[in-house]
């Protein structure tokens, strides 16, 4: 073992990557490190780069620590925890010069893998666990906690804090807790005895996460649906969206049950669910269930990914034309077709914006992180009912399945949901006649009734041509009158969707326009460009239809770059289509390989364009 120590110390600014075999229990060890850093008050991100597989294939976890909060994906690693012999070569190659490799020294490392500019730290994790544990499964699992013990020593993580986290996690299982504590200590002791700890890049406690939480976007989305009052959901399992409904199901079991008194004398009171979660036969049925419930006046939603949106296209058109509220969460993954189900992308923008045959356009929201997933989910339900139309929230795998440090969620008990114009029986009694698609309000929305309303409010909803009275029609003018109103209604939603975030600098001629999970990488790029003498403004689109500020931003910058995670520059096209701005007035910066965006991709593309 070489002990070449780099003299320059870096505190709270580094990245490490952990290479594992999937299905071996590494996720809990990696999450433990991430959580410990979070608890030390330091901005941190953890990104899981995993295969579409149950067991045996390579998987990586990347942790980036940055005191300034620049926690977008890093592309250079100071420490590689190389625990997968299958990928040694590429993992060792990925360490930056002067960095470190931690590996399992139970077996010798092939000498042709060695690099002169990298320090190799070996520890015999498999051998230690073979000795310390009797059960075969435990020997495999505990290796992960043992290397976590080494990382604790190497990075200067508070050992007691980590011991405390294990105690919390295994509060109900003393045997597991003891095994974990033992494995942690094995790794920690071995490394402190053999390596000068901590390494030159290390951690020091901060107070930057005091009011923050560590949460993934799918859990946050489920929380948003619950607090927004969703009572019906239809869904079909799909990576990376499954976590939304898994979490919604768990949360409902906690928060949405009440006891009904016995129906017969001497009978037992029963626990009832104030919700119905229906696992459908496919995504077509999932959206069908949502529309049935939305028609009936319940807040209902589904969660899916791109392939599911493809299947839902038919009924999304029905919902648009018949004006039924629905909330659809699209946790985007890499397409087309099955694509790469465990990799991220933002390539469903146009699919969602114009979903279905015929002239259709939908309201979209674009959260950038779990905090916005929570907030926009609530907003999406309001938008759906206010405008009586499907609203799609476009999250992605990076947001949905990775843990993010975000401000703690809060709730205003004075919140009143916007249920849109729905006529009660009292309202109907005041009316001479009710016609479903007549008398639009200022936002071009017409009042609806729900099934069960008094007979005067009964109408026949139909996806076939209808006039403003709701009657079947094949008359050109009567047909157009309705679809023209729908277009105006959609346009009116621009004032209601989450407004863009805009940050400007004096004299900036460069504008970086982006959306969703590109946020952190683009913000970091703004800083890096500033350091290089290029002042750049920032705009993040958060909803569709676009606010006027989006077009204004493009016009105000001689060099506008539209940064997004798809091949075809879909956001750029949509801005051009919707605002009439020439497409050449915006330069695309595209990342679509499936990994989350990093700042250097943005900086590189911008500088290349400006400097030639």
């Amino acid at each position, binding site marked *: 073992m070489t002990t070449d120590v780099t003299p320059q110390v870096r505190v709270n600014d580094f990245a490490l990557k952990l290479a594992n075999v999937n299905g071996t229990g590494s996720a809990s060890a990696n999450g433990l490190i991430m959580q410990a850093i979070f608890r030390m008050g330091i901005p941190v991100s953890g990104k899981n780069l995993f295969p579409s597989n149950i067991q045996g294939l390579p998987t990586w976890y990347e942790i980036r620590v940055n005191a300034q909060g620049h926690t977008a994906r890093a592309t250079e690693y100071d420490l590689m925890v190389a625990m997968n012999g299958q990928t040694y070569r590429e993992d060792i190659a990925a360490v930056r010069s002067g960095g470190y490799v931690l590996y399992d020294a139970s077996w010798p490392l092939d000498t042709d893998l060695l690099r002169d500019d990298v320090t190799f730290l070996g520890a015999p994790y498999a051998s230690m666990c073979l000795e310390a544990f009797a059960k075969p499964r435990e020997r495999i699992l505990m290796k992960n906690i043992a290397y976590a013990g080494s990382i604790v020593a190497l990075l200067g993580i508070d050992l007691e804090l980590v011991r405390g986290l294990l105690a919390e996690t295994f509060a109900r299982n003393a045997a597991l807790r003891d095994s974990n504590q033992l494995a942690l200590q094995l790794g920690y002791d071995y490394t402190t005895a053999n390596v000068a700890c901590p390494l030159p890049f290390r951690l020091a406690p901060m107070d930057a996460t005091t009011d923050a939480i560590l949460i993934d976007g799918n859990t946050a989305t489920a929380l948003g649906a619950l607090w927004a009052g969703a009572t019906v959901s239809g869904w079909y399992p799909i990576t990376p969206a499954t976590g939304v409904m898994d979490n919604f199901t768990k949360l409902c079991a906690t928060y949405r049950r009440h006891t009904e008194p016995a129906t017969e004398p001497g009978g037992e009171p*029963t626990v009832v669910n104030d919700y*119905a979660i*229906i696992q459908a036969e496919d995504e077509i*049925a999932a959206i069908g*269930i949502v529309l*049935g419930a939305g028609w009936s006046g*319940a807040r209902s939603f589904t969660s899916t990914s791109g392939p599911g949106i493809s299947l839902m296209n038919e009924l999304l058109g029905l919902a648009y034309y018949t004006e039924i509220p629905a909330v659809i969460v699209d946790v985007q993954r890499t397409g087309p077709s099955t694509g790469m189900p465990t990799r991220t992308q933002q390539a469903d923008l146009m699919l969602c914006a114009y979903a279905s045959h015929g002239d259709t356009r939908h309201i979209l929201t674009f959260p950038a992180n779990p905090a916005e997933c929570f907030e926009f989910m609530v907003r999406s339900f309001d938008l759906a009912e206010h405008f009586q139309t499907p609203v799609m929230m476009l999250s992605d795998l990076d947001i949905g399945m990775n843990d993010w440090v975000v401000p703690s969620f809060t709730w205003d008990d004075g919140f*009143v949901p916007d249920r849109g114009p729905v006529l009660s029986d009292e309202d109907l009694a005041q009316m001479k006649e009710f016609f479903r698609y007549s008398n639009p309000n200022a936002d071009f929305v017409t009042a609806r009734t729900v099934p069960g309303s008094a007979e005067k*409010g009964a109408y*026949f909803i139909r996806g076939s041509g209808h006039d403003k009275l709701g009657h079947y029609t094949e008359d050109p003018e009567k047909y157009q009158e309705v679809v023209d109103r729908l277009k105006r209604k959609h346009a009116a939603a621009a004032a209601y969707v989450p407004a863009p975030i805009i940050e400007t600098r004096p004299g900036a001629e460069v504008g970086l326009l982006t959306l969703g999970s590109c946020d952190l990488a683009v913000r970091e790029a703004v800083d890096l460009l500033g350091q290089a003498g290029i002042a750049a403004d920032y705009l993040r689109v958060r909803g569709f239809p676009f606010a006027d500020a989006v077009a204004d931003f493009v016009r105000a910058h001689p060099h506008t770059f539209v940064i997004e995670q798809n091949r075809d520059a879909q956001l750029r096209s949509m801005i051009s289509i919707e605002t009439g701005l020439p497409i050449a007035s915006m330069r695309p910066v595209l990342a679509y390989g499936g990994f989350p965006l990093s700042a250097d991709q943005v900086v590189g593309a911008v500088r290349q364009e400006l400097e030639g």
Partner: protein
Amino acid sequence: MPSIVKPLIPLAPLARNELGLTIRDYEGAMSTLCAGCGHDSITAAITHALWELSTPPHMIAKLSGIGCSSKTPTYFVRGAHGFNSAHGRMAAIATGAAAANRELTYIGVSGDGDSLSIGLGHLAHAIRRAVKMVYIIENNGVYGLTKGQLSASADVGTRPKKGEANVVAPIDPILLGLSLGATFLARSFSGDKEQLIPILKAAAAHNGLALIDVISPCVTFNDHEGSTKSYRFMREHEVKEVVADFIPEREEINARLSGGGRRSVTMHDGSVITFRSVPEGYDPTDRMAVESYVREHQSTGEVVTGLLYLDETKPSMHQVNHTPSSALNRLTFDAVCPGSAALAELMADFR
């Protein structure tokens, strides 16, 4: 809300149901189907059954997919809430509606194309889920609106108006239902309102999905010689051995007393179905016996009609989901939003 208003022809004073409504109050717009279409007879039977049941019109939700059959909800109960959805998707939409509001009577009208081809998956899963609804398949063996293509219910050997005889095995909704765990399976013939009305009434009382396959000849595309869904074929091959009566819960209790050899099943809402006559050895609650009886007759070219199978012991979707006895859509926001204190407490779990 009809698209073509039906002319009301004054007749002698009409009978009134328990709500004081006449049969006229259960009618809808004028049919735009072909004269003599079997579907119009089914519409008349539905109208009559709902009137006899005294179901308040506004407490009825009528849903359909796309096709000739799916046009028919416009033609009955104008005061009901209607949803003419997309081809094959009615079952999924009805599932969501029923989940949100269990207080309505759901009448789904579909066809053989809608239910046995494009929407087969949704029908199958609605059966599995036991969505509480009446699901009517107006089965004519052809696609009418697209002018006469054979459907998935067309029997082997049946001839379309033009082209070759069918060689592809049909899907029989009754046998399908038996294999999927359906709890109410009936077959009828559009030309037999006397049989269909009690079946419809029983179906509305059933605690689950009541599937009714109604052979309904298409006079334009499938009523010719060589068709097994024609009026003539049905008149010649129908076997009506399973005869059931429906007795609403509110009627006199002594009406439930059945004569010797009769068999009664008490429904979830307290109403009673009495099998007035069944073939020797036939048990309408024995899945396997029903299946072999239906198959046996099929092998000789006969079509068995009646309320063929009934299981009132299985839980419906609402019971499986443990939803409240009143509609979910009536829960107030305060009842479903856990509020700020609960959220603040929960946040500690994400530290």
